[in-house]
């Protein structure tokens, strides 16, 4: 008797099983208070979810190590051949649009690394269209975690890391070849550029994925901006039409991913009459892009229609 009276009020590690419809409200609010602490915020929650889901996918990929090593190597090779094209080209010509091989390699490295990071972390968003079409997005929406993090981390493919490594190698190589007067500003600008570039690419991917809530088959349009944008940025702006260059400065601000800051590092003027200070505007542009992407995403979720049944 005495034992039962003492154990009941104790909130032990093993809570008493709620019996019948009299389940207490108290235990529930308690539970949600600890789990739902507002200190986390959406961003913290998103990061936590992303880490969790991505970690699980990595673990499941690592179950087949050889297969993983092969796909990683494959991803590395595919992007490497991409660069071989540039190598071959410079076997025939001395410069491209007035840019030396080292300079083109530098452009290639900065854009490629930024894109690689974005592709690694956000590439799964491409599959959103299918999820919207077949209604399997419902499942994600029913879970107590931010949707964007769930979709972006879904089937997290570590093999995409091969692209990052390849672009990074080219970037490092170009740094040895380049003849640049390094200043502290330039030294700081380079890593900042790569990070901001990845964020801008990521924001474009999210914005594109948001459009899929309405246009389920528009994934290719986004790819034109992301994969296409990456290819565009790997070459000097001087070889493209000025209208195109202006487009990626003012419309879809991909020029801030690498062109503008990289040209500053190389000591070259900004293209298409863009003011020189624009080279330092990448963080601001990245922030604005994230804002636009966030709004688009929210609007997309609210207009999600699911499927029949």
């Amino acid at each position: 008797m005495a034992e039962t009276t003492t154990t009941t009020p104790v909130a032990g590690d093993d809570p008493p099983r709620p019996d019948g419809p009299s389940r207490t409200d108290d235990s529930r609010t308690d539970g949600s208070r600890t789990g739902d602490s507002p200190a986390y915020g959406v961003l913290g929650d998103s990061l936590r979810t992303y880490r969790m889901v991505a970690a699980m996918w990595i673990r499941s990929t690592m179950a087949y190590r050889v297969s993983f090593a092969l796909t990683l190597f494959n991803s590395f090779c595919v992007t490497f051949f991409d660069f071989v094209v540039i190598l071959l080209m410079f076997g025939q010509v001395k410069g491209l649009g007035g840019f030396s091989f080292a300079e083109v390699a530098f452009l290639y490295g900065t854009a490629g690394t930024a894109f690689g990071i974005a592709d690694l972390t956000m590439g799964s968003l491409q599959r959103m269209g299918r999820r919207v079409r077949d209604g399997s997005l419902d499942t994600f929406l029913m879970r107590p975690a931010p949707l964007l993090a769930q979709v972006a981390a879904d089937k997290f493919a570590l093999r995409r890391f091969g692209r990052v490594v390849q672009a990074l190698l080219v970037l490092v190589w170009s740094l040895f070849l380049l003849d640049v007067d390094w200043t502290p500003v330039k030294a700081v600008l380079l890593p900042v550029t790569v990070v901001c570039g990845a964020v801008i690419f990521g924001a474009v991917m999210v914005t594109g994925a948001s459009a899929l809530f309405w246009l389920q088959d528009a994934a290719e349009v986004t790819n034109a901006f992301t994969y296409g944008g990456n290819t565009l940025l790997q070459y000097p702006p001087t070889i493209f039409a000025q209208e195109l260059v202006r487009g990626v400065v003012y419309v879809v601000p991909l020029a801030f991913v690498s062109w503008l800051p990289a040209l500053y590092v190389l000591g070259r003027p900004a293209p298409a009459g863009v003011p020189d200070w624009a080279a330092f505007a990448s963080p601001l542009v990245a922030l604005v892009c994230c804002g636009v992407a966030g709004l688009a995403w929210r609007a997309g979720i609210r207009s999600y229609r699911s499927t029949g049944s």
Partner: protein
Amino acid sequence: MSSTEPFIHLDGLEKTFTVRRRAGLIRREKREVRAVDGISFGVERGEMVGYIGPNGAGKSTTIKMLTGILTPSGGRLRVAGIDPSRERTRLARRIGVVFGQRTTLWWDLPLKDSYRLMHRMYRIPDARYRENLDRYVNLLDLGDLLDVPVRQLSLGQRMRGDIAAALLHDPEVLYLDEPTIGLDVVSKAKVREFLKDLNGERGTTVLLTTHDLTDIEQLCSRVMVIDHGRLMYDGELAGLHGVGESERLLVVDLERELPPIEVPGARFVRAEGPRQWLAFPAADSAAPLVAAVAAAHPLVDLSVREPDIEAVIAKMYGGTREERRESLR
């Protein structure tokens, strides 16, 4: 949460979809479809309610609004005092959802990986998680399936896996959308038994949509019928006009083509070669009927078809859905 408001509360809930249809080469016609057209009801804690209606009546749309997946076009909606579409992720921790036609599990991962992820995503306390997992693995016979990737599970296995997944975080409400669809008789019985116990022991509120009248008969004391996005009936199953008169079908495969079978308690419906269809009241047992048929005829095979909701509702309004539609024009 105010104490006077029911646990689940819908007040004039509406959902309209705009459907665009091509009319000619470029011109597109816009048309509004009211999937849910002003539904109001309340469900108290611990109730087990059947939510039924023909295909396209608006059942799934309602459930999706209750989970926050879809944003209502009008009306008011509260689940546990929460507005689902505004606070979807907060509500998610307190509800469990099982879609019969779609898994909530990670398709390519072993069942136990899915559960492990749920554990962390729902922030279930460790002790609670282990206790629940053991319990449901036991009750739903999942022991041998934990290491199998979800895509390799049979429909019945997957359904049991899904039900366990929906309950790991001790939801206060469980929405079940066609939980027995496509299951064999044994699996159906298992699922029903489990749900009944769950509601009895844990007091989980259950809202169930189904096409299978037996689900409702065995589980729900209260049933709501929805058609064309409107609530047509809310009350006891017995009160549903037409339920008592509903019939089951006995499908008999004979060795050869024979004249219509005549047995007491059943009515000959039609024949197709050696196969014959007999109808008998849904409330009657099939056993004596089968015995009577087998005694007098050379049997090859037989099966029993349960009456479905569609038939009952059609009877309820007299005539089939198509006929009603005609009469509306």
